[in-house]
């Protein structure tokens, strides 16, 4: 039973790491840039959990001091992550703006097609087919 409780106590860490790896997988395995950015925000939310989870004290309350409470969860990670969320959405928007511009220049947001087009415009002949085969 205590073994189970110990595992349950580590469940936050497991889920955090799972989400981190899910984000990493989407970023490196998928070619669509919008999906990559969603994967990046998955990774980012896992970092929120990584910071906030250790700050929790079981039986504690939110860190707003009042005479009725004695145990408060740790406010420091909250401060760090609060600003990180707002910065995160601003940088996500910046990334999406870049995606929009890439789409206008290349007509696609798929990494493979963009590489293929670049190969073609750079040497004009053979690279196109090669790159496409190498990528797919």
């Amino acid at each position, binding site marked *: 039973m205590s073994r189970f409780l110990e595992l349950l106590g580590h469940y936050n860490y497991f889920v955090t790491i799972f989400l981190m790896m899910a984000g990493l997988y989407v970023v490196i395995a998928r070619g669509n840039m919008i999906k990559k950015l*969603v994967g990046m925000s998955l990774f980012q939310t896992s970092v929120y959990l990584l910071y906030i989870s250790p700050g929790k004290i079981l039986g504690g309350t939110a860190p707003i001091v009042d005479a009725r409470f004695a145990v408060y969860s740790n406010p420091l990670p909250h401060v760090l992550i609060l600003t990180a969320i707002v910065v995160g959405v601003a940088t996500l928007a910046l990334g999406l703006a870049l995606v929009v511009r890439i789409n206008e220049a290349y007509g696609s947001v798929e990494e493979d097609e963009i590489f293929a087009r670049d190969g073609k415009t750079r040497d004009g002949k053979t690279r196109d087919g090669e790159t496409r085969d190498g990528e797919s």
Partner: protein
Amino acid sequence: MELAINAVLLTLLVAISLGIIRQRSLFGVVLLAGAYSFLIASILIVLDAVDVAMTEAAVGAGISTVVLLATLHLTGSMEYPKPRPAVLPLFVCAVTGVALIWGTWDLPGFGVAVAPIHQATVPEYLRVAEAHLIAPNVVTAVLADYRGYDTMGETTVVFTAGIGVMLLLRGRRKVGADAGLDAKPGAKT
């Protein structure tokens, strides 16, 4: 009870993240990401981070969903149908994940009051707040008072990102978006 609610919400989070990975329609991905943000906000409330939860609910489910949908409108909403070979990325993720989980064995358990994170600096903040020397909401006090330089940096980052978006998207506008600056004829190659 707290542990149980926490565990259930985290399991739902895992399910939604699997959905995000598998879903090919980007529209579906964006909606799942919105649901994911609301779930994260609920978890943050369970973890006593009410300030953070409020921000995440407004940002994650509101603003970032709208911005993602606007991008889909400008680009296209289907992912490339042919999946790329995923063996190597899966291997890399599995190895990294196992290594990280191995690393968590040395971390203190969840919600333990004697964990090292609760020993330094923070008792001092709470003592000062209980003596009514700073605002009762310790998060606001630390944000604007103790870590004022940090927050100034964060504000500057938000400002810089906003300016960047404006610079990138300003050039070609919809007809009628602004008097005088009409859409240039398409520069699409």
